[in-house]
């Protein structure tokens, strides 16, 4: 005997097996991300007033990636309806776009990651803070490009060690630097600059590299997950999401390539598979729709 309802729906539920399966699986995924979102809310609400960093991510890039995912989502449904209309070529075309979108998304995401990992945040012995992109790092000194200071009224939006700065109000850019010359900080380049440029008033331009002697450095960290709980949750959630993107893309690519043989033998079932993988894909999109404002905009 064969397992029934693999392709045709069962009468009383109106569903075929895999459809039930995928929805159950998505239900557990909802709980998984629900756990992370709870953690996010909790850590954020529980954080000391004013220490939760905001606006450190690049909004245009994030928006771009959001659009990429939305496009891929619509091509998935279009591909499925093409199959329903028995237009295999159209299906192939749309699903190819989906896969390309997935690739773009992952590439952009890894660019963003790299950008954060090379972003260093340095606290000097006198309490001054400087951050910028790593140019060079040796045992004696560290060189940062596009060094950045936060406009005073925004305060220091985050603290690598929460207690570190309790008694050190954010250093004004003028007084920054320990021997006065090198550390004059400069306006933002990426990330924070969306809002910052207007309020920024010092510095005469970009591209100055800043070299700091290690002897002056009290504490130094890059913007990895260890930098603060914001980055911790940012990296964890987006990495998990990216894994879902990769997983989904692999399945879709498999069905597009070698798995497409089934179209000849059992088109109904093949179409169902596309629907199932599509449901997963939309879910991944859905998660991003929430992740984007929560991590990038708020």
């Amino acid at each position, binding site marked *: *005997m*064969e*397992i*029934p*309802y693999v392709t*045709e729906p*069962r009468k009383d*539920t109106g*569903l*075929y*097996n*895999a459809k*039930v*399966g995928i929805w*159950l*699986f998505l*239900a*557990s*995924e909802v*709980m*998984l*991300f*629900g*756990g*992370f979102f*709870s*953690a996010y809310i*909790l*850590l954020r609400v*529980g*954080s*000391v007033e004013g*220490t939760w960093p905001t606006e450190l991510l690049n909004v245009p890039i994030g928006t771009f990636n959001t659009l990429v995912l939305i496009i891929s989502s619509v091509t998935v449904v279009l591909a499925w309806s093409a199959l329903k209309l028995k237009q295999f070529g159209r299906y192939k075309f749309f699903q190819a776009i989906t896969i390309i979108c997935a690739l773009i998304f992952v590439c952009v995401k890894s660019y963003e990651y790299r950008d954060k990992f090379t972003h260093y945040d340095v606290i000097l012995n006198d309490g001054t803070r400087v951050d910028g992109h790593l140019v060079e790092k040796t045992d004696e000194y560290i060189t940062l490009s596009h060094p950045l200071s936060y406009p005073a009224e925004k305060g220091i939006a985050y603290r*690598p*060690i*929460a*207690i570190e700065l309790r008694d050190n109000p954010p250093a004004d850019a003028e007084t920054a630097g320990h021997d006065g010359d090198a550390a004059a900080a400069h306006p933002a380049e990426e990330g924070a600059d969306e809002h910052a440029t207007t309020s920024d008033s010092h510095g005469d331009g970009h591209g100055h590299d800043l070299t700091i002697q290690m002897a002056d450095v009290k504490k130094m*960290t890059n913007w*990895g*997950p*260890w*930098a*603060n*709980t914001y980055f*911790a*949750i940012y*990296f*964890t959630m987006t990495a*998990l999401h990216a894994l879902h993107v990769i997983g989904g893309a692999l399945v879709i690519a498999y069905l597009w390539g070698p798995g497409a043989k089934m179209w000849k033998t059992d088109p109904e079932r093949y179409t169902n598979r596309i629907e199932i993988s599509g449901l997963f894909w939309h879910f991944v999109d859905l998660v991003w729709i929430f992740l984007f404002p929560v991590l990038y905009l708020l």
Partner: protein
Amino acid sequence: MESTQTHVQDETAHDAHHHDPGFWRGYIFSCDHKVIGIQYGVTSLVFLLFGFLLMASMRWSIAYPEKPVPVVGKVLEAVLGDTAAGGIISYDLYNSFGAMHGTIMVFLAIVPLAFAAFGNYVVPLQIGAVDMAFPRINMASFQFYFIGGIVMFASFFIPGGAAQAGWTSYSPLASAIPTDGQTFWLFGMVFLISSSLLGAVNFIATIIQLRAPGMTWMRMPWFVWVQFVTAFLLLLAFPPLEAAAVMQIMDKLAGTSFFLPTGLAIGGQLADISGGGSPLLYQHLFWFLGHPEVYVLILPAMGIVAEIIACNTRKPIWGYKSLVYASLAIGFISFIVWAHHMYLTGMGTKISTFFQTTTMIISIPSVIILTCLFISLWGGSIRFNTPMLFALAFLPMFGIGGLTGLPLGFNFSDIHLHDTYYVIAHFHYVVAPGTIFGLLAGVYYWYPKMTGRFMSEFWGRVHFWSSFVFMNLVFQPMFAQGMSGMLRRMADGGAGYSIANNPDAIGGLSDKMIGLNISISHAAWALGLAQIPFILNFFLSMKYGKKIESDNPWQATTLEWQTPTPPPHGNFTSEPKVVRGPYDYSLPGAKEDFVPQNQSA
């Protein structure tokens, strides 16, 4: 329904290449739910034994702290090295064993046995399905479980040994202990959780989609219902723990501070971490799973007990509908009681009122279930065979365990009882003489279905009575110990807090309480010996057991007994058509005292 013709064709086509799947495809990488069920069953029984052995060593340390373990100590030293130097169980090793006893018993022994093994073998048969809805996912589920088990097992042999932060694995301790065993534990858990998720999806889809014609929801055996609820608990409660595990992995490996607060100091120095995390967050995520998990442990056992009681009283289960609704209610409410494990983490009145109220509410469906099972006995014609003995013993044992949950459930009395041996006794009464008895009953009951032979009735009785006596000798005294203030997770069994140790201090443990440790330990080892008849019986009966005379040796009504023994691939020779409820025993006017579900009169 498609035309029957295709089915017939399929069948022959199938027979052709399923005739001899060979050893690997047939037993190791099989997709057949029955084989997977047996794989789960054997693996989890082995882990049950292993969990017991860990505990047996711990009980030595509790009874005779810092004395070398006779015989076994040499082995431990040879295998584990310094932590067992001189054959003495060090505190580190005790903590490893404690954490792993809990983990292995819960996640590697009882859940796989109760849910995956019995569920896999019995559920598709009972609903008249040919297999699980997704056989290959089913196989993957077992493989994940197996890998998870190996990861957990391997962690004993790495430097530093296995996890030492208890089965609850609270942060920051989990991040602070020096062994990598914790990392193994976390990765092992990720595998086990994934395995359970796959299993849960499969079970629910199977029960929703593959019920045979006529098998309406209210005609399902109650066992299927509880497996259904259990699957939902696993499906929805495990993912938050997976999230917690991932975050704890990040804390350990990526230097994040999800669960590490600002100002954390290790060895007096402020730790070099970003801080800003919350240790309580971990506890919430853990117990969000933790509480539903305990119902995962108990519901399948209750289901088995109900099946056996119905069959061996020769009358229907009393209040089938109440049972169904009570189990659904337990499932729902179990998600909102979790913080009763956290009363003493500093809870205000409002929130603890909420949680203790829900805790009291959830005890009502348990009372209903137990009441229904008790009342089912009335008017029966009770056969006292081995499965029935275990099933009957389940009732008062679960009763004791459940009732002692009440003083824990009220926050005010929990102040005194929290983290004492009273808690240990409470939950062991539900999981050990409770669940384990239920599961053993199931083993004795379905063994003939799996092998075509009975297990020895005589040795079954020996096993039952000795287990029953020793179980109670182990756990009953723990209530007294806990009440008098003995704390759990003490490698020396509380000797450090005894009057003997601090003669001038008030409130120490009396010699009598400390002395009980020794008798408990002896009872625990005897309990282990009492399993030898079972293990022998289990293996020898496959060859020498009494052959069954019919496919329905217990004269039961449910569908698993209406197939050949053991059931062939595809389970049924012809598709069963269900025409009645699950427990039509002693139906007035029927020829025999049982009417199978697919028989019209």
